């Protein structure tokens, strides 16, 4: 067990208020960071976890101010230091890495220069030895060919490598404490796993004290030594990681843990007549060059995909960003021109219909988008938004029938009927996604394309929305094409799974088959990176 001597940073009873309204954002947060240990602060958006780290570093935005508490590094209270001294604490003693590496790096300087810049500020290294040190750091954070990468610009590196550069920059001045604010949220799962592994290794080898802020329980399970759950500005539960996952005390913690996939229960597969059939579907975008804009090549976003979705069935299309899964969804909706292959819906070819010819099928195929905030016109009431499809597809309802129908739909998605008079900005993400579901259901479709419908939502809300989708499937027998990058939601939801990589379907089969006995190496890599409740 660690002793108090290991404690690198101690946050004591930290309270933060909103300057304008006096609303309390943090209600007395205390925690200790120990050398060689990762302390995970978990919570959903708005729970105050990022505010905790920013307050500790005295980097709060002007609208917030600290009312009480202390942050001690060694014996020194950071709140007593003058701002000039504080600047040397940031970087030399405490380093931070953020979610979005691309926006934290300067696009017009090479990554080597940027890391060297940090070193110059805090050390006396110059010239060749400075360069040597940077290359050494690059090697340490696992960047291939570190010497050549010195003169790369940020956009020439992948997202994972950019995050590694950020970590190298944070480590440049040998800090004792590292604050990582959602360091892997913007990354694909396979890369996420690699970056987390790096952070784990560095914690051990450099005896860092790490504060890891995340909303992802899988990340916590695989990385952290100690966990604290934040809820509405309080730490409601704190425990060692084993203890926490096997024996959570709070109801809320249980809900967070339940969001992790259970790889033992699957949806049973019933053989059904296919509702939608894709046959070698291709979507190619031309690349044009020169004055005359001649087509020189094609981007093969979707390159020969064949699959079938049965009535009342859920087909999960899994893949990382850029694999072409969203484009395929848009192609089925006829929002993207299909360059080759056939799309059949109930036996009718719908792949290359004109706008007008597509109209009868619009009623039958609907869509739910990833970002509920951008998928509703901010200037229309919820009622108008839901009614839009009914009106434009000419369901021929009278005003009172329409109103009744909107009410029923809101009931179905467990929202109050009065909400139809409100505007989208008055709702939370989860509520908005329910409205989006109601909008899709309004025209009684037989197939709904769900394009990452839960990835913008917090974990606890995510399971509610997924539950609602399943309930509606049982009630109306609607089929889903579920596009996602998150394998963890697949087992409870999908009957069939297809794995996409670079525009091709590399593997497909029943959910059980894919998740328990994957054949393709890419599927195996994806599965390995999924955090699980029981790693053994």
């Amino acid at each position, binding site marked *: 067990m660690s002793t108090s001597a290991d404690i690198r940073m101690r946050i004591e009873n930290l309270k933060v208020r909103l300057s304008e309204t006096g609303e309390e954002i943090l209600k007395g947060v205390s925690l200790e960071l120990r050398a060689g240990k990762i302390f995970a602060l978990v919570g959903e958006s708005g729970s105050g976890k990022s505010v905790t780290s920013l307050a500790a570093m005295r980097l709060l935005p*002007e609208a917030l101010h600290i009312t009480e508490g202390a942050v001690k590094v060694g014996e020194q209270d950071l709140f007593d230091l003058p701002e000039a001294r504080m600047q040397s604490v940031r970087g030399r003693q405490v380093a931070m890495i953020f979610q979005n590496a691309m926006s934290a790096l300067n696009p017009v300087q090479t990554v080597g220069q940027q890391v060297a810049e940090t070193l110059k500020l805090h050390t006396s290294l110059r010239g060749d030895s400075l360069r040597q040190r940077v290359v050494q750091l690059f090697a340490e954070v696992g960047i291939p060919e570190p010497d050549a990468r010195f003169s790369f610009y940020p956009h020439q590196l992948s997202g994972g490598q950019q995050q590694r550069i950020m970590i190298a920059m944070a480590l440049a001045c040998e800090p004792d404490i590292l604050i990582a604010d959602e360091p892997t949220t913007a990354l694909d799962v396979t890369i996420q796993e690699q970056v987390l592994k790096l952070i784990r290794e560095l914690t051990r080898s450099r005896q860092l004290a790490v504060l890891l802020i995340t909303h992802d329980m899988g990340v916590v399970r695989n990385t952290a030594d100690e966990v604290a759950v934040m809820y509405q500005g309080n730490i409601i539960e704190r425990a060692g990681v084993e203890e926490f996952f096997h024996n959570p005390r709070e109801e809320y913690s249980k809900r967070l843990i339940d969001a992790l996939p259970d790889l033992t229960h699957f949806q049973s597969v019933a053989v059904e007549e296919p509702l939608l059939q894709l046959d070698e579907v291709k979507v190619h975008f031309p690349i044009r060059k020169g004055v005359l804009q001649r087509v020189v090549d094609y981007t093969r976003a979707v390159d020969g995909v064949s699959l079938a979705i049965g009535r009342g069935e859920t087909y999960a299309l899994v893949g990382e960003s850029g694999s072409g899964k969203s484009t395929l969804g848009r192609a089925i909706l006829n929002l993207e021109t299909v360059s080759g292959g056939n799309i059949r819906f109930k036996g009718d070819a719908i792949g290359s219909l004109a706008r007008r010819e597509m109209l009868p099928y619009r009623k039958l195929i609907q869509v739910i*988008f*990833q970002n509920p905030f951008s998928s509703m016109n*901010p200037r229309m009431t919820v009622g108008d938004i839901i009614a*839009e499809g009914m009106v434009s597809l000419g369901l021929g309802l009278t005003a009172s029938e329409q109103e009744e129908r909107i009410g029923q739909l809101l009931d179905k998605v467990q929202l109050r009927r009065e909400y139809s008079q409100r505007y989208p900005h008055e709702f939370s993400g989860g509520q908005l996604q329910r409205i989006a579901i109601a909008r899709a259901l309004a025209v009684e479709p037989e197939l709904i394309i769900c394009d990452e419908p839960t990835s913008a939502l917090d974990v606890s809300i995510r399971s509610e929305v997924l539950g609602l989708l399943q309930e509606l499937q049982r009630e109306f027998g609607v089929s889903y094409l579920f596009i996602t990058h998150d394998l963890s939601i697949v087992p409870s939801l999908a009957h069939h799974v297809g794995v996409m990589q670079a525009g091709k379907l590399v593997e497909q089969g029943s959910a059980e088959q894919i998740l328990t006995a994957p054949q393709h190496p890419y599927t195996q890599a994806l599965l390995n990176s999924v955090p699980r409740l029981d790693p053994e």
Partner: protein
Amino acid sequence: MGALEIKPLVLWSDALIYMLVVVLVVFFYRLRNDPQTRERWGQVFSSRLGMMTFTVIMVYVGVALLDSLHFRKALPNPEGLESTEVFYDNKVTSVLDVMLDGMGDRFERTYSAPFALKSFEKSNMVDAQGNMLRDYAFLTHAGGHLASGDNKWTDVLRLSAIALAWGLAGAAIIVGLQWFFLRGSIYPWYASWAVQTAVICFAVWLVYISHFYHVLGTDQGGTDVAFQSIKGIRTGVLLGTLSTLVMLPIAVTLGVSAGYFKGWVDDVVQYLYTTLSSIPGILLIAASVLLFQVYIDLNPDFFSVGMEKADARFIALCFILGLTSWSSLCRLIRAETLKISQLGYVQAAHAFGVSHTRILGRHILPNVVHIILITFVLDFSALVLAEAVLSYIGVGIDPSMGSWGNMINGARSELSREPAIWWTLTGAFFFMFLLVLAANLFSDLVRDAFDPRSTAGRSEA
């Protein structure tokens, strides 16, 4: 027949500006239902600065509207001529002229300094003995009421005190009435009332004092400079609004269709605005104005009074400014439309089979309105300044129509003589500065409230 017989005269620009006012009122009345818009305007008006600058702008607009009600006075029948026909004055008068109480009719011979009693230049005179002499002549309309021993400045102070008392009394009534109706309002009306009081006092003082002195002196032709500056308000305000009115439909139609339909429509629109913006604006405007001037000169029968001719040129200038300045707004709207048409709600509308017109009208247009609004207020002050520049190089407003640009143009050479004639420039500058400053400050507030980037930043903090 009464001596006050008048014949209303509606100039083209008068009709346009009143139409614009009606359209704007209807537009804002309809926007009233949109809670987001209401909230944002609420934000603009809940700041004192917003209230004050808006009041200043409204005063300018009010003056411009009063100055846009034109009529011609009936001339008294020549003596001995018994005719039932009424002849009307060729000089066009506006309601504002009447309210200024003849300020524009008190001509001197030539330059005179502010509050001067004598002319600025010597002229030949004949004294009581019949000798020719050259001296500074007394002004016809200034200081005539003074006895020979009186101090001019004591008199000015005395008159100012009287005017101020009247002004305060008037302001008390007007502000008091507003106070009665707006008591529970959450907006800082007192800021507006402060401005209103200042404006009313100033106006009463100016009109009252101008009976006795030329507050801002007179120009070369002997016209009161204060009067000219006030007449410049209509030109400035109308030019700003009418040009924007011409520009908006072009920019919005082209921008939205380029961003929404993409493909060859986009190519054509882009080609148009890149071509247009690579021609130097001033040259294009100068050439167009000169062409139109030739047209006016060749067709004198179209215009019954001189004012109509000047008005035609003015409207032409508005159109030309509008037609040449749509490219930047068009570019902004195209970019925003490109962005919006990729958003979920437009995609969802496509998936529902909503028609193009409906998508454009319900989803795209309402969501680019903030850009249009911001550009409208920002461009307004730029256009007022553009008028001054154009008049300066001689292709602006017709010289017979008062405008700040013409005043500045007339004053430039006089600045270099010793002693300098500074008051024409000061008058034009003061009135223009106040308008442009108010418009700029107001547009900053509007932009803060409506720019999604600034609001996003605030809500996240």
